[in-house]
């Protein structure tokens, strides 16, 4: 077990006791906003990060002062005499591999005034190391002492005893990870009034209306292709919100025309922005192997022999639920067709998180939502916005979940 931040000489139990005695800040306290803003600026002002750590830049951008002010406005925009206070100590479990997504929930929790304990895996990548470095620098400033004293970042190999101890101190437990991880951590008890948020394995779709696509100008079409590419490949199509299946809506002829126009533009865009998906032999082989695996297990309706270039597309007449577990990302799209959007609901289930769309009206989407199978789809956003984080995530309103509401009623 290693304490990564802040530097401390105290043994863990003592450090935890200190945390419990720490006074909670109100939501959106000045010092919290200053801290997050300082972090954001340190990222956005460092142009060297733009190429190698675009996800950190996206994070820095999301937490820029203007956006924090907007979040603050949204938070306090409730016409009520009730008071929101922080939950207390929030224990976060970051996902095993890469992904910076857990930082969003951590920083939102921080802004809300909570004390945060973050458990990182022992295999950390360059992004996380850089993050820790920047935070350590900020912790050296006197003005951020309160934040420093309210934060604990540690790392340990899977150890139930440590998790048990940490959990006994928390008021909320946030778990980012695969289904297996969540099951294992869930088994470890929480104090009676503590709550738990789980962010499990999710799958995402993109729906395109062929007719609308055909009405686009060449520029519009190129832009649409770029939007799909941006949604899909920032994390090699491994992010939960990135679409792995495309549903085409319309009649057969329109759909075929649309595909013929659209996919070459997508290939082109990938060559410009994410060419490593084509040039790294190991990625090509993994994608190709995944494609062959799907073809063999689920009998895709492939009219042409498989090819290695990205994006690889596999056409299915029906969407087999198990395809979700089989899909490894890395530049492979499952393609489905439906005459009407409403018919696609039969393919969705509780694992599905994001639906990006193009060519549908508000009314069509609302009708669609009312027919969704129970538990499925947490967000429906325009194509291009798949990876935009929101305070409402996986069905949780983080503002509400990471604070406590104290009901204050005056005399009638």
């Amino acid at each position, binding site marked *: 077990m290693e304490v990564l931040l802040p530097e401390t000489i105290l043994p863990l139990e003592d450090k935890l006791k200190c945390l419990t005695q720490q006074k909670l800040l109100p939501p959106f306290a000045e010092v919290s906003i200053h801290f997050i803003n300082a972090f954001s600026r340190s990222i956005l002002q460092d142009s060297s990060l733009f190429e190698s750590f675009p996800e950190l830049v996206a994070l820095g951008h999301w937490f820029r002062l203007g956006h924090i002010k907007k979040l603050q406005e949204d938070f306090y925009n409730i016409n009520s005499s009730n008071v929101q206070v922080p939950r207390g100590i929030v224990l976060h479990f970051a996902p095993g591999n890469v992904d910076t997504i857990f930082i969003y929930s951590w920083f939102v929790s921080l802004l809300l005034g909570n004390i945060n304990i973050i458990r990182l895996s022992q295999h950390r990548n360059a992004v996380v190391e850089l993050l820790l470095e920047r935070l350590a620098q900020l912790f050296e400033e006197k003005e951020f002492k309160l934040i420093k004293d309210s934060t604990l970042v540690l790392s340990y190999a899977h150890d139930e005893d440590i998790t048990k101890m940490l959990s006994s101190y928390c008021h909320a437990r946030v778990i980012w990870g*695969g289904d297996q991880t969540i099951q294992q951590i869930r088994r470890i008890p929480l104090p009676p009034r503590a709550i738990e948020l789980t962010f499990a394995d999710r799958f995402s779709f993109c729906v395109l209306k062929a007719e609308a696509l055909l009405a686009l100008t060449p520029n519009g079409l190129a832009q649409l292709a770029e939007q799909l590419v941006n949604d899909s490949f920032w994390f*090699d199509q*491994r992010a939960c919100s990135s679409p792995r299946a495309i549903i085409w809506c319309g009649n057969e002829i329109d759909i075929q025309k649309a595909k013929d126009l659209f996919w070459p533009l997508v290939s082109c865009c990938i060559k410009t922005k994410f060419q490593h998906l084509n040039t790294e032999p*190991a990625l090509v*082989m993994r994608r190709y192997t995944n494609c062959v*695996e799907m073809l*063999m297990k689920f009998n895709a309706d492939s009219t042409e022999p498989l090819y290695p270039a990205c994006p690889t597309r596999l056409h299915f007449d029906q969407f087999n639920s198990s395809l979700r577990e089989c899909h490894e990302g890395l530049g492979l799209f499952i393609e489905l067709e439906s005459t009407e959007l409403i018919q696609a609901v039969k393919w969705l289930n509780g694992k599905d998180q994001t639906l990006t769309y193009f060519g549908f009206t508000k009314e069509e989407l609302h009708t669609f939502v009312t027919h969704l199978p129970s538990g499925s789809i947490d967000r429906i956003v325009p194509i291009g916005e798949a990876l935009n984080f929101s305070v409402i995530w996986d069905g949780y309103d983080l503002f509400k979940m990471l604070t406590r509401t104290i009901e204050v009623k005056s005399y009638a």
Partner: protein
Amino acid sequence: MINHLLEKPFAFSKSDKEEILLNIQKELLVHHAQHCSEYANFIRPFNLNKIESLDDIPFLPVQIFKKLALKSITDQDVFRVLSSSGTTGQTPSRVFLDRDSAALQSSALVAIVTDFIGKSRLPMLIIDSPDVVKSGQFSARTAAILGFSYFGRGQTYALNSNMDLNINAIETFLEKYQGQKILLFGFTFIIWQYLLKAAIEKDCRFDMSQAYIIHGGGWKKLQNLHIKKEEFKKALQQHFGIRHVIDYYGMVEQIGSVFMECEQGYLHTPAFADVIIRDPQSFAIQKNKTVGLIQTISALPRSYPGHSLLTEDLGQIMGQDNCPCGRAGKYFAVIGRIKAAEVRGCSDTIRS
């Protein structure tokens, strides 16, 4: 048909070999499509009537055997299951053999190896621990040692259970067969680390000047230590007097594909197997001397669809039918495994 090829594995030039191998491959395609439903799904988009040369034979990616248990025989007919040594966290490959396939695999190995070291059974020193053949799982190392053991007699293990040099066993062996041709066999890294380096450390000078040493398992570990092939061979000669060092390239996923190094330093394809090089981005066929992904074709895999595989190894074809060593067939060099991918995204915290 295959038996014909097995009799003289290095006597078939391109014109003799290609048609035979192509016909066998076409027949195997149909056979596996009929008996393995997953393979039938894979082959469906291909127009089998358009196959005109070995270049047109569809290929499976070698890792598919980690994802699916592919067999063209019933469960009852499974005689042996070979498995690769999977890297940490990964399931190993599984290859299903029936009795006939297992026998054919042995015959193929005999046909190839005897062409390189002669037909008589040589006294054999195995550079490994006896535990490697005791473990429950039939790993690539187990398969290799048991397979090559056929060529030897008086099999002796050079290492102890804990991989230490069994100096006593080695010295007894060398004394017993002094002056005679002997065979040493083991995995490249193990020979380097646990025989060579260990012997140097302990200042043991073994006289192995009459030995043929056959080694396989790849050069990755030695590459990581920045040790080149020439250095490996030179060290064996300097410390043990060994002049015949024979590398071989093979994989658990394709039985019959054992490519041995000739006197000129090239790996040779036997008559019943072949090698094609493909561009890692487009999978297009590459010319001679161009580096690309190695695809291996074998006439042997009948019990499972392993007859045409695209590996994750890079290599280059050096020539065909004209190797100075005198053997017919394509000859090639292996550069090494492609670089592992760093894959992103959420995954189980538990695994770390």
